């Protein structure tokens, strides 16, 4: 419903530009009877104003009515939403918390938001630090994330697919690298993903040392459910390997990039809140090995 309106105003705009430019050029270049004196007794001209303003006003009023109708029709989702996701904007990543009637099925993930395709999904937008804006261009308009105020919006993906989103309110040094992905899946696939996300990590016994290293180096900020690491400052990493990208859509999630990111976050995203930690190659290796088991 928004799309026809968007096309409508765009086409109206292009027509207006064409007509006015045409009139302007015609006015400038049209043939005139050559006058002897510099100033002839000036005539008329007001008809132009009345006609032009009259037509413009009609178009403007019609657009206003169309706008209000579209607004009324799209403010609420077309059907009841079954899923509510609470999205919290942080400098410079997105936290997503999936609600459920069953408390044991509430879980938190980050930067990659899966939704079932073909149904509207409700989003509750929570601010934690500065103002951000939650926007998936292909799926809908943007809504700001404002501390102290919870905004509600909804999105629906007609077809399954991966849809890119990006923070659209300047929020600091790494505003440029605060993307996220909405992955729309057929309902059964979504349910599979959801069940997997609910489950805690189960690190194998030979990773005890790596888990401990992770806890020391990373656990203050990051959580991995199923281990003692419970930090809430940075993204939840329980199922990090299920995501296609890391660092809020900045890098592909490959072992090389993952290592590079952990070793040099300030090089990848200068000014983001993940500190540059001097760690030995062994520690880095251990952490990466552990993370790669978190699918």
């Amino acid at each position, binding site marked *: 419903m928004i799309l026809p309106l968007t096309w409508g105003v765009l086409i109206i705009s292009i027509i207006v530009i064409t007509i006015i430019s045409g009139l*302007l050029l015609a006015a400038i270049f049209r043939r005139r009877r050559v006058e002897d004196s510099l*100033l002839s007794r000036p005539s008329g001209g007001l008809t132009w104003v009345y006609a032009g303003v009259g037509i413009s006003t009609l178009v*403007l009023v019609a657009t206003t009515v169309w706008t*209000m109708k579209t607004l009324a029709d799209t403010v609420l989702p077309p059907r009841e939403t079954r899923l509510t996701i609470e999205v919290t904007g942080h400098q410079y990543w997105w936290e997503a918390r999936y609600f459920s009637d069953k408390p044991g099925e509430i879980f938190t993930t980050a930067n990659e938001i899966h939704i079932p395709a073909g149904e509207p999904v409700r989003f509750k937008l929570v601010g934690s630090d*500065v103002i951000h804006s939650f926007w998936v261009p292909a799926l809908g308009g943007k809504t700001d994330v404002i501390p102290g105020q919870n905004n509600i919006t909804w999105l629906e993906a007609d077809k399954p697919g991966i849809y890119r989103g990006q923070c659209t309110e300047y929020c*600091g040094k790494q505003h440029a690298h605060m993307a996220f992905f909405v992955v729309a899946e057929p309902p059964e696939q979504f349910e599979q993903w959801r069940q997997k996300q609910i489950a805690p990590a189960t690190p194998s016994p030979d990773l005890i040392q790596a888990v401990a290293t992770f806890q020391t180096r990373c656990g203050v900020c990051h959580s991995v459910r199923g281990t003692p690491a419970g930090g809430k400052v940075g993204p939840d990493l329980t199922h990090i390997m299920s995501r296609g990208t890391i660092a809020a859509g900045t890098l592909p999630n490959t072992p090389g990039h993952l290592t590079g990111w952990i070793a040099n976050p300030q090089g990848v995203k200068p000014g983001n809140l993940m500190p540059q930690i001097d760690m030995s190659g062994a520690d880095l290796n251990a952490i990466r090995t552990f993370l790669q088991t978190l699918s």
Partner: protein
Amino acid sequence: MARHTQRAQTPAIVTANAELAERLHKLWEIEPGIKGFLGTVDHKEIGIRYIVTSFVFLLLGGVEALILRVQLAQPDLHVLSPETYNQLFTMHGVSMIFLYAMPVLTGFSNYLWPLLLGARDTALPRVNALSYWLYLFSGLFIYASFLFGAAPNDGWFNYVPYANHQYNPGPNIDFYSLGMIFLGISTTVSSANFVVTAMRTRAAGMSINRIPILVWGTLTSSVANLLVVPAVSLAFFLLWLDRNYGTKFFQPQSGGQPLLWQHLFWIFAHPWVYAIVLPAMGMVSDGLPIFCRRPLVGYTLVALSTMATMAIGFGVWTHHMFATGMSDLALSFFSGVSIIIAVPSAVTVFAWIATIWTGRPVFTTAFHYFAGMIALFVIGGVSGFMTGSVPVDWQLTDTYFVVAHLHYVLIGINVFPVVGAIYMWFPKVTGRLLDERIGRINFWTMFIGFNLAMFPMHISGLLGMPRRIYTYPDDVGWTAWNLITSVGAFIFAIGVLLLFHNIAVSLKRGKPAGANPWDGGTLEWAAPSPPPPYNFVVLPSVASRHPLWEDRLDDAPGRSLIDIGLALDKGRQMLGTTVIDAEPAVILQMPFDSYAPFTLAVGTAIIFIGMLYRSWPDIGIGVIVTGIALLLWLWPGRLREGSPEAANEPPFAEPGHV
């Protein structure tokens, strides 16, 4: 002993003559040396200072933009660090919107108004001088932040909480906050001067339906500024308190309201963006007719639509906040008003087209700019119309589509008219014409470069590119458009440089202009080029909108008098007239050159520097300097009647007369 004061004079009506001219010259000329440099109150000198200073800031803002465009020419470049990028994009906006766009129009209005109005100066010349010094010092204050590596970095609208001290601990935002309050004082006093001038010091017979549209434009902006500048000054002051004294206005954790900032800011900033285009539109409305050899079509409608645009403009500010989670009622209302505000703009655009259509265009460079801006106006206008529709705005806001829109309206409706105005009035100011051949190249380079730079931004915005990002990935389809924009920006910059080249060349070797090189109809073309310090030897009286065209148009019942009129040579004197009909009402005693405005501005600067350092002693010194300057400025003078000295000696400034 009772002092007798002069209650009335019967002013002499004389024919302009050389002896009177010489006497007036001695009375009105700028004092030589430092007194004249620091203390001049001549509106022409102040106007030129405003224009030159604003163009310096334009160049600085332009360089900032070019650096940004180098960084954005390709994906993932590392020409600039994110922090540097953020400071540059912020200062680009600040420089253009606050330190160029309004002051340049203030400069043109300063220079032209008294000439257009048939007066010798504005109504409050020392206030006028004060406004310039405050502008210069506040601009320097804001730019001084670069010396500390701490330029403002939160965009020109400076949203909280990112502007709060928790997220922005350096002095960047303090420079911006205090600098803007400082600049606001300049804007306020300058606006007050324009309003009082428009009300009081017009030529006899210049009733309100005979005022040039430039005067309507600046008058409208000035009234608006007086009403809305306090909103932004307050917002910045509250922010400064939050950052430095622990207040809670914008602290969400204490119940503070980030959206309060946005409301206060946009209540100011939306009328501001109309204030920075309406005077320029007025210059087009006054200039286009000259180059179409006929008066403006629909003068009354254009004057009314100037005021209507601003009046409606007070009621649309939340269209900058459509994505913040407003109520449906508010969304509908503000969306509707934001679309309807296009109606008065349409009046003006069609009036211009009608003027061209029914007139006979003369293809001077000025005409190119005045006609070319109409096309840019329409493109900028329709992109605004699109974003006025809320559901569409939810896609377009905060993307490069809006960046395209704002550049089309600001460059199209401010910069292009300003350059056209330079080509038109340069001869009046300097006595020489700008080169028309260079002018053509100047226009086309600017026009092509501008469109090449800005039009693709509509597309990158529609493709999802957000604003204010220092880089972008290579796989989202924005690359080609960004490259084209960057190339176009440099071409546009060359165009701007051509303007300076033309000015430099023509100052030395331009063709001598004479008083009325374009055969214009309004009063400024009756004064010599450049005008003498007193503007008119005798004060003109007018019978129509186009005093110099009356004989040929033959549509006015009376005739304006230009060579015969009031001499008003008993000191620095001007005529004060009634507001609506401009009947003579009072003889105004005008001030001589004075150090008070400069000193007052210095005192104010000391106060703001003291606030920046939170140093009470410095603030105290500033207050004392300011207070003394004010006291001396306003000290009532002596008036002596009848004594032989009084006849020849210019009286001091009168009680309450600034």
